[in-house]
């Protein structure tokens, strides 16, 4: 990856979210508006100041409305402006921020509104059913799989290769739901125990009910501006210092499932741009994507914040706690805050933005933080997006 790229500096100056909940009355457009309005208010901007709009959403089929970028445009403030939609499965939320970044970094726009929305609850009996046609039509489709199946296989492989127990993985769920109880936007915060996780219903072994994030509706939005004007609007611009994204092959059965190489590639790209050489020393706070508890550990390793197989040990020692060395998912993550796919990814970026700005309230981590990383992941365990920010 080239590092002598010529691009404009980009700062985040505002963010907003709806509360994540299941079966909200609001339409997707109303949710997008609420998040966008809050982001503009925090930035001190009006819609007329915004040059272009980026919309992120996962499959149209979640909301049950086709062409969702177009559908959301008026709620996301896109009317009469250049609008683009990004979609890389579960990795979409962070890609929305990355796309906001390159609209400014390229010099094309000075002020960008990036909006992500997902309403998971209209699809019945379960939104998982929308994934029927993402499989290889010959070798996989006849089994009628769903994503939880293959993530269960990934989890099992991770446990086997690294000799990790269910108890050790359950600690992620315990930590994140506890962190979420400090988050006013969270759907499922609370105090649970490892035993609660181990006794919860088995969905697809080894995935049990409390190993997985809930079905949620929600929206999130951020404002990114050109570095030269950022200080006109805020005393504390948060700089986007590095971005990375990758897509691995769809032939997931041919890959080693115990380690997310696609994420390592994305992380290395983002770290190179940000000038980070020793991630574990230089990164102060992280929001890895955690739709399942094992995924947080898997992703901490892919982000090079732990050696392969080492994340469970560090977790047990409190390394990733809110008052630990590298607090991980201080927001409560998807396990605690909820998982409206694209919005959940952007929520991760917003969480880091608020931590670096020092406005995370009860979520604020104990130690001073200067460099933070947010990450998302999706598709057939193949897509990853990473963003590095500094204050």
């Amino acid at each position, binding site marked *: 990856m080239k590092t002598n790229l010529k691009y404009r500096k980009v700062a985040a100056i505002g963010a907003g979210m709806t509360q994540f909940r299941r*079966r*909200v*009355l*609001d*339409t997707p*457009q*109303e949710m997008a*508006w609420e998040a*966008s*309005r809050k982001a*503009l208010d925090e930035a001190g901007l*009006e*819609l007329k100041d915004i040059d272009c709009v980026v919309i992120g959403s996962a499959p*149209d*089929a979640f909301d*049950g409305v086709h062409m969702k970028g177009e559908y959301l445009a*008026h*709620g996301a*403030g896109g*009317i009469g402006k250049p609008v683009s939609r990004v979609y890389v499965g579960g990795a979409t939320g962070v890609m929305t921020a990355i796309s906001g970044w390159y609209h400014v970094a390229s010099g094309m726009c000075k002020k960008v509104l990036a909006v992500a929305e997902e309403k998971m*609850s*209209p*699809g*019945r*009996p*379960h*939104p998982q*059913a*929308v994934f*029927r*046609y993402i499989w290889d039509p010959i070798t996989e489709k006849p089994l009628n799989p769903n994503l939880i199946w293959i993530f269960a296989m990934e989890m099992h492989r991770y446990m086997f290769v690294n000799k990790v127990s269910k108890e050790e993985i359950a600690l992620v769920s315990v930590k994140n739901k506890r962190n979420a109880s400090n988050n006013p936007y969270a759907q499922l915060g609370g105090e649970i125990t490892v035993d609660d996780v181990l006794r919860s219903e088995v969905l697809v072994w080894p995935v049990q009910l409390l190993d997985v994030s809930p079905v949620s509706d929600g929206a999130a939005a951020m404002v990114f501006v050109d570095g030269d004007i950022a200080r006109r609007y805020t005393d504390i611009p948060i700089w986007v210092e590095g971005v990375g994204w990758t897509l691995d092959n769809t032939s997931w059965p041919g890959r080693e499932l115990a380690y997310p190489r696609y994420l390592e590639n994305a992380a290395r790209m983002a770290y190179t741009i940000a000038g980070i050489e020793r991630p574990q020393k230089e990164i102060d706070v992280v929001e890895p994507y955690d739709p399942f508890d094992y995924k947080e550990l898997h992703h901490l390793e892919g982000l090079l914040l732990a050696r392969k197989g080492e994340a469970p040990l560090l977790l047990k020692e409190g390394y990733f706690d809110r008052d630990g060395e590298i607090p991980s998912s201080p927001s409560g993550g998807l396990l605690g805050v909820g998982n409206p796919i694209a919005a959940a990814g952007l929520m991760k970026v917003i969480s880091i933005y608020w931590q670096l700005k020092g406005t995370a309230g009860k979520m604020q981590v104990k130690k001073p933080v200067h460099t933070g990383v947010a990450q998302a992941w999706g598709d057939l365990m193949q897509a990853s997006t990473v963003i590095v920010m500094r204050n």
Partner: protein
Amino acid sequence: MEVDRYVYTLGIDGETFMQGLKQGKIIGRKCPKCGRVYVPPRMYCEDCFIENKDYIEVHEPYLDSYTVIHYDNRGARLEPLTIGLVRFKGVSGGLLALVDGKPEIGRKVEIESFDIPLRVKVV
């Protein structure tokens, strides 16, 4: 889209609109800044990007445009069916309606049934 079914919500303003229909009213909502009236009502103004304010009943429906349908989506022949785009005086936004009577652009219509779709009669 392969889920069995979708359960959509009306949204905040959608609820108000449907309540209005039940009472034989067409409800809109007005932006306090630019004065634009949205029908059906909308929570926010897409231009001013602020929350819309008062719900108001709108009046004086007229035909903004219409079409006559001879085939359905599957290509089957239909009894010709007139569909109109109905607007209201001084309001931006419109509603689709089944049209009785001889249609003409700009003509006033009378709402015969307050439903989705509306049924209107050219007067």
